[in-house]
């Protein structure tokens, strides 16, 4: 039982193309295709726009920055991770999020997004985020940045792989119908983890976007009269 490494489906010379690559490529084509088709149909486009605005309002409630530029990123993450988690319910395919490579790539996207959007929001001043509340905190902030990216990757990976392993063990122990409640629990985990991944990306990105520019009043307050 090789639970932690994905299966190699196609071998091209020394390069093994794993299940993860094939399934995520298929999902991407499918999702983009759905998007293209549904935006051409009038009523479907209206429905999608209503959903989009609902999501935008929901995200705006969570953070104090303007979320308009962030909605496409977060919504894409939600839709993609949810699809990637739930595709594991189909026979033959395993959910690609049980491969640490994919979740690490998604976490790196979240990590990069914080920097890109922070830079876009306020130029290089967003780097001041690292020396808050004072420059002594710089190493802690750096470690925090790395560990939260690692945590983002490991959380999704751990949740998905544990669900899959538990289902596999129960199937091998008990038989056909018993793992169904566990699979239902797995569906819940999939939805919640996709939601959380998006929300955490939003929170991290927003914190890079809204670096308080109040360093001057602070130093004024701190200096003796």
């Amino acid at each position: 039982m090789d639970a932690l490494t994905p299966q190699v489906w196609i071998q091209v010379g020394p390069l093994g193309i794993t299940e993860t690559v094939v399934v995520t490529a298929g999902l991407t084509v499918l999702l983009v295709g759905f998007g293209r088709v549904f935006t051409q149909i009038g009523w479907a486009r209206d429905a999608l726009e209503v959903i989009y605005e609902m999501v935008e309002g929901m995200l705006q409630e969570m953070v104090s920055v303007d979320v308009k530029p962030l909605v496409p990123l977060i919504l894409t993450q939600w839709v993609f991770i949810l699809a990637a988690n739930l595709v594991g319910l189909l026979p033959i395919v395993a959910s690609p999020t049980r491969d640490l490579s994919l979740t690490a790539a998604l976490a790196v996207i979240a990590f990069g997004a914080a920097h890109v959007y922070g830079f876009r929001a306020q130029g290089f001043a967003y780097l001041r985020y690292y020396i808050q509340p004072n420059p002594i905190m710089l190493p802690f902030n750096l470690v925090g940045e790395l560990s939260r990216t690692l945590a983002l990757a490991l959380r999704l990976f751990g949740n998905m792989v544990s669900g899959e392993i538990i289902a596999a063990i129960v199937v091998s122990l008990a038989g056909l119908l018993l793992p169904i409640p566990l699979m239902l629990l797995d569906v819940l985990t999939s939805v919640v983890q996709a939601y959380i991944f998006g929300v955490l990306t939003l929170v991290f990105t927003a914190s890079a976007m809204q670096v308080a520019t109040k360093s001057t009043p602070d130093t004024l307050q701190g200096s003796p009269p």
Partner: protein
Amino acid sequence: MMTPQDWITIVSIVMAGFAVAVGSIAPALGEAKALTQAMDAIARQPDAANSISRTLFVGMAMVESTAIYSLVIALVLLFANPLLP
């Protein structure tokens, strides 16, 4: 006769169970505490139930990630043990 490889296998399996058992105590207590506090807050302010439960979900996922770390360590010990060939 036990070879060193056998000992490594035995210790790995025992410690994998131990890692999950010990590693899930603190997150379980933490999540229980967060849940009771959130229930309390919702009982006091039912209007804020939406934002409370949303924050609770995110916070719980972050607390739970500590348990997930020990699970990942246990899985590495069982399936990708660097000490075993």
